[in-house]
């Protein structure tokens, strides 16, 4: 019964669809319309990514694709590398400036999401989730292994020294140094306070090397630890009571933040999350902290940190007044990457050597396997897994994982304390 409306309707639609073409053909002089159309095409072309592209954009896009490849192909920290990788792509799509598109343009969506990175708000929320998912049992059962988490922080202070030598300002050096802590949230938190202009490079370096821990650490382990020591078997950790687990976050919070109040946002949230987990009466909060909340923040943090690596970013030099490119691919970024690599090596070596030194003072079955010193760099839980894998290579019956978790998580605390110290001295 609708069929009778068919013809007029069809005519109307075709009329409309044809009207534009008619207009081109008939309205006014014709050439004028054609010129306008050409102008329009040109205007649009100047707006596209093709017209605004710079070769450095393509370099960064290649880096982003490589991150995604590493994450999918080798399963290297995919929860970090996928968001950061796609963030690098998003940040390096060329665009005409001044249209609230880019991350660094005020009022753009990316800029709003980046706010939580810039102000250091996301990292404590991630630490809340980490606290709510971390089991500190192995550390509570054998507290002396905690010292290995302190030893590996030599990577931080070595990098501070190295960055100073390379000519970075003290605050910049402090921010760069934290790469050696092998904790992404801590690195972002500290650089947001000490050197916001270097945050992109610092974050990318920290996350890259954390993803590459399975590549970086094994050769250093084999270099510094003789085969016979790599085979040392350790006593299983003692069982830990629920009361100890509840006391740990409370005591840990009070002690560490009294020593290093600047680390309060990080350590406060880490131990808060852990208390939510261990109290046994706030399971629904702990569950949200370690799932929805940490996932949401990880997504937003990853993609905006990635997008902060914009290759082309023309700003006015505050001194000379000329327009300069403050994009990601600068000599400073390269230096930061080099320093980051060294800091991971030094941190690993520091943990390993200190473990051997500790063994000089320990006897019999109390001796520790020095390999677990490498887990002190944190990079939770990858470096603990690397220790496990190396241990199994030397003795297929020697499971070091549970022992390596102790320096591993204490490395997180150590880095946060170190970040607080940097803030105390440099801010």
């Amino acid at each position: 019964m609708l069929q009778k409306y068919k013809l007029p309707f069809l005519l109307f639609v075709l009329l409309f669809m044809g009207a534009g073409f008619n207009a081109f053909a008939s309205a006014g002089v014709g050439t004028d319309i054609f010129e306008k159309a050409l102008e329009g095409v040109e205007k649009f072309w100047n707006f596209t990514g093709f017209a605004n592209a710079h070769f450095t954009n393509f370099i960064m896009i290649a880096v982003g694709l490589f991150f995604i490849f590493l994450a999918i192909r080798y399963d290297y920290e995919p929860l970090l590398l996928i968001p950061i990788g796609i963030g690098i792509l998003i940040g390096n799509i060329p665009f005409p400036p001044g249209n609230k598109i880019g991350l660094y343009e005020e009022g753009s969506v990316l800029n709003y999401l980046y706010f939580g990175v810039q102000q250091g708000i996301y990292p404590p929320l991630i630490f809340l989730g980490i606290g709510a998912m971390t089991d500190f049992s192995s550390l509570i059962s054998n507290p002396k292994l905690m010292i290995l988490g302190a030893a590996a922080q030599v990577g931080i202070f070595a990098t501070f020294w190295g960055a100073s030598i390379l000519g970075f300002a003290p605050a910049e050096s402090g921010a760069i140094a934290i790469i050696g802590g092998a904790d992404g949230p801590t690195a972002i938190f500290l650089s947001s306070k000490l050197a916001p202009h270097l945050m992109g490079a610092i974050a990318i370096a920290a996350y890259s090397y954390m993803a590459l821990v399975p590549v970086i650490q094994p050769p250093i382990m084999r270099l510094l630890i003789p085969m016979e020591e790599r085979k040392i078997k350790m006593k299983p950790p003692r069982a830990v009571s629920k009361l100890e687990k509840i006391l740990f976050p409370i005591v840990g919070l009070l002690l560490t933040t009294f020593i290093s109040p600047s680390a309060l946002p990080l350590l406060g949230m880490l131990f808060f999350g852990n208390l939510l987990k261990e109290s046994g009466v706030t399971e629904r909060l702990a569950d949200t902290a370690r799932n929805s909340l940490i996932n949401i923040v990880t997504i937003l943090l990853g993609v905006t940190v990635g997008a902060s690596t914009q290759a082309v970013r023309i700003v006015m030099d505050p001194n000379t007044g000329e327009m300069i490119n403050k994009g990601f691919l600068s000599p400073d970024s390269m230096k930061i990457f080099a320093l980051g690599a060294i800091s991971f090596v030094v941190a690993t070596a520091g943990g390993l050597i200190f473990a051997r030194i500790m063994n000089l003072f320990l006897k019999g079955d109390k001796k520790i396997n020095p390999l677990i010193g490498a887990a002190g760099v944190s990079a939770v839980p990858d470096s603990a897994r690397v220790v496990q894998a190396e241990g199994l290579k030397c003795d297929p019956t020697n499971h070091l994982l549970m022992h390596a978790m102790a320096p591993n998580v204490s490395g997180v605390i150590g880095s946060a304390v170190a970040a607080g110290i940097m803030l105390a001295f440099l801010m």
Partner: protein
Amino acid sequence: MNLLAISSETWTITILGWLIVFAALLFLVGIFLLIPKIIKLATKRALHKKTRHVGSVPAEDEMMLTGEMNAAISMALYLYFDEIHDDESNIITIKEVKRRYSPWSSKLYGMNNMNFPR
């Protein structure tokens, strides 16, 4: 390049910073070596009272061994599951296992039930 030709403040932070991190964690180590001893003391007293009513308690050493093995196994399982998938379900599984099979945890939960009514 003279590696020492940097400001003395840099040296201060480099050395002092690391030492403070050490000090902080050593402090924690000390406390956490102390805590179990305090708890043991308190527990012993509580157990002492309890045994009058309940009767025989399994020897502590034996219990501890079981508890240790249990903890080791559960942590290994934990990390094993963690490699398979990243979410929480496994943790719950392990918790159940712990509760169900370990005589040690039964003692522990007994103690907790004493202190924590639910």
